[in-house]
């Protein structure tokens, strides 16, 4: 029953500085952080540690008062060196200075036959306690899944089409068994199928090829073909009342390790990429690593922006900041805080544009040209004027502008009818990129999702 879906709409932002498939020999990061703001929808984060406490990898550090069983655990063993708070004492970062050798909290291990007889309750308990539950994201809303829900299906995208994205198969090399175990555990949670979606034009990696008892689908097309939201739309769309879970392949493997080895293993390969990186490559570290060591001596210049994640959906972090919980990519771009004489009129060939309005000649460069783009917005915010463009980069049967306007008007019925349940920020991120009027499309989408959740 596997499906092949060929998508045409979308746009690839081909940036310079893609990570080479090799692993850096630089010294590992010393500090790691958990950022409550990474967990969308976490309303009342409660701290379980204090400055000076010693933790192991897998020691609970944080939970949401609204979802008390789901623990966010320390990625490494070491000492809690700082709890950083912002305005109104908002919890921002819990910093942990890592030991040289990582010690793990020990959880129960399961062998193959024990896994077969594992009950859903037992699995839930282990996963929520062991720090891996936060990998499961629920649609609609894109928030951490609720333990009591039963999703109609679970979706995993095995490829990432975002600009400069890390190669998922490369980052999971050696985790074949863990991935399979993770899938076995996930099967406890749904009666419906688990969908693993591959790139039609790529080779299916050994990590994913031999996983049985799930549905393998293939997608082709430009970004956002690799977005799980787009894949759900074409295979098993979400209507009102439906719940679908999504999880990254890394999350699946992490769940697998929790059951097979009994540890919360937060080690991961992170891609360091972007035009300002001298030698873009992969870096072996743990979730939430500090940026500074990763880029030490590896930058072309200093006036750069560090982005936890990709350039479409990521978040700016400082040089002494930390990668996000879900992030396997550090993008480094030049800052764009410069003015240009008659910048709106000048012909430009070196700046990528989806459009071909006067002077935007990047379409002449061909598809293989790699661009060095900076963070300048290239214009100011205006009212919606151009029409039909958002549709061209959204491979879903959705009218993005109408949806966005419904959100701005806080029109609940229309938001629902126009498909708000089917999208989260990343699915409309390209709209934000191509927008002539420079709206913060993703923020509007998040506002809409929050309205629907609370309304």
């Amino acid at each position, binding site marked *: 029953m596997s499906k092949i879906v060929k998508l045409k709409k979308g746009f690839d932002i081909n940036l310079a500085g893609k990570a080479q498939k090799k692993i850096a020999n630089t010294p590992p990061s010393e500090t790691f952080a958990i950022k409550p703001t990474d967990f969308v929808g976490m309303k009342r984060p409660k701290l379980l540690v204090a400055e000076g406490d010693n933790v192991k990898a897998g020691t609970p550090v944080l939970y949401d008062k609204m979802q008390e069983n789901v623990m966010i655990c320390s990625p490494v063993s070491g000492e809690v060196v700082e709890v950083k708070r912002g305005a109104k004492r908002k919890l921002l970062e819990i910093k942990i200075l890592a030991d040289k050798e990582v010690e793990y909290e020990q959880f129960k291990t399961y062998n193959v036959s024990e896994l077969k007889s594992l009950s859903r309750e037992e699995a839930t308990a282990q996963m929520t306690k062991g720090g891996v539950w936060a990998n499961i994201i629920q649609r609609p809303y894109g928030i951490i899944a609720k333990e009591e829900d039963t999703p109609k299906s679970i979706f995993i995208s095995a490829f990432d089409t975002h600009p400069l994205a890390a190669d998922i198969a490369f980052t999971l090399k050696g985790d074949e068994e863990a991935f399979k175990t993770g899938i076995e555990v996930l099967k406890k949670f749904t009666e419906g199928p688990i969908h693993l979606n591959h790139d039609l034009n790529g080779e299916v990696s050994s990590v994913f090829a031999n996983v049985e008892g799930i549905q393998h689908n293939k997608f082709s097309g430009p970004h956002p073909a690799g977005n799980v939201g787009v894949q759900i739309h074409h295979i098993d769309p979400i209507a009102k009342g439906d719940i679908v879970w999504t999880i990254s392949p890394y999350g699946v493997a992490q769940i697998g390790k929790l059951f097979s080895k009994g540890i919360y293993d937060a080690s991961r390969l992170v891609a360091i990429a972007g035009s300002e990186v001298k030698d873009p490559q992969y870096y072996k570290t743990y979730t939430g690593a500090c940026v500074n060591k990763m880029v030490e001596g590896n930058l072309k210049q200093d006036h750069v922006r560090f982005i936890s994640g990709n*350039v479409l959906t990521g978040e700016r972090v400082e040089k002494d900041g930390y990668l996000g919980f879900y992030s396997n990519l550090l993008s480094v771009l030049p800052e764009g805080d410069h003015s240009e004489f008659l910048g709106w009129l000048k012909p430009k060939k070196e700046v990528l544009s989806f459009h071909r309005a006067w002077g935007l000649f990047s379409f002449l460069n061909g598809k293989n040209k790699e661009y060095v783009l900076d963070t300048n917005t*290239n214009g100011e915010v205006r009212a919606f004027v151009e*029409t*039909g463009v958002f549709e061209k980069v959204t491979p879903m049967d959705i009218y993005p502008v109408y949806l966005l306007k419904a959100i701005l008007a806080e029109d609940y019925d229309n938001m629902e009818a*126009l498909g708000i349940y089917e999208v989260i920020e990343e699915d409309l991120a390209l709209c934000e990129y191509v*927008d002539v009027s420079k709206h913060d499309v993703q923020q509007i989408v998040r506002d809409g999702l929050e309205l629907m959740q609370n309304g």
Partner: protein
Amino acid sequence: MKFLHKILEKQKPMFEKGGKLEKFYYLFEAGETFLFSPPITAGKKGVQVRDAVDLKRMMMTVVIAMIPCLIWGIFNVGYQHHIAVGETTSFFSVDNLLFGARWVLPIVLVSYAAGGIVEAIFAVVRKHPINEGFLVTGMLIPLIVPPTIPLWQVALATVFGVLVGKEIFGGTGMNILNVAMTARAFLYFAYPSQISGEVWTQLADKTPVNGYSGATALAVAYESSTTDTSVISGLADTNSVLAAPFGGDFFSFQNMLIGGIPGSIGETSTLMALLGALILIATGVGSWKIIVSVFAGAFAMGTIFNLVGANTFMELPAEYHLVMGGLAFGAVFMATDPVSASQTETGKWIYGVLIGVLTVIIRVVNPAYPEGIMLAVLFMNVFAPLIDFYVVQANKKRRLARATV
């Protein structure tokens, strides 16, 4: 240029909050961002890189697409004058250029100035940035008025168009009607004697030669139908004393296609409008669906009238409708205004076809308004949201149907 930018930056605090000229911040901002693209960078969350396009650039593309029509219009105003007063001249002569520029450029300047002042006042009072949309409107209005129009009427119509057509709704992006068409409709109903009849040739106080008629092809067509003579022969008889610049009779098909005829400044040459269409379509700024469907709708309606054939105007070969009057200019530059047009891709087809159909119906059936495109565009502007409503409704139904399966 850095030097100039530094001077500007130094003035900035004066216009910012708490500064002496705080009120005029958006005027200063408009000026500064016109000269120097602002150093704004992407926010903390969300996209970290943005497309190179912005609204200024998009609007500029439309202005560039209109330049062929403007230049042609300038030559044609001169040419029409010279042949009307009996001087022989070749179309692209310096004489025509100078005479045309003398009458056309003031209209362009007045239109930009009048509209610019309204924009500036609204930016200051309503505290919003200046709308780039006016780059386009300010050029559109001169191209759809006769060269003989009094300048004060241009100013008044522009103010009316920008004010009532756009600003009271909240500015570019919020308007319901096409701004330039609103301005023209205002002129048409407020000062009909300056925008209908034989106003299409700037005679500049000289007497025209014997047998000269300043009527447009559409007026001739209507006249012919009242006397039950064939429109083609009616067209052929008009101004037969004058030499057609591009061969054939004065109102031959090819002459109307290329544009050596009297009319509003920018509308006479179907060919130049098509050149503009080519620019708009190639750059993706104008919707090819709308442009194609307006022509298709007009041609289809013309053909249907051929079959009815109740009078000689109805018998006019359908392709003539495409080159007469302002249909081409309206299809390319007016109907495609993204704000007032239909916003869904399916809707654009329906919207365009109906504009074409309505234009021909108004031309042929309603003799009071020989130029149908203006009213057709305005009428469909009003209906565009309704078309979109049903297209979007269909999308909602698809989503619901999927859920129950």
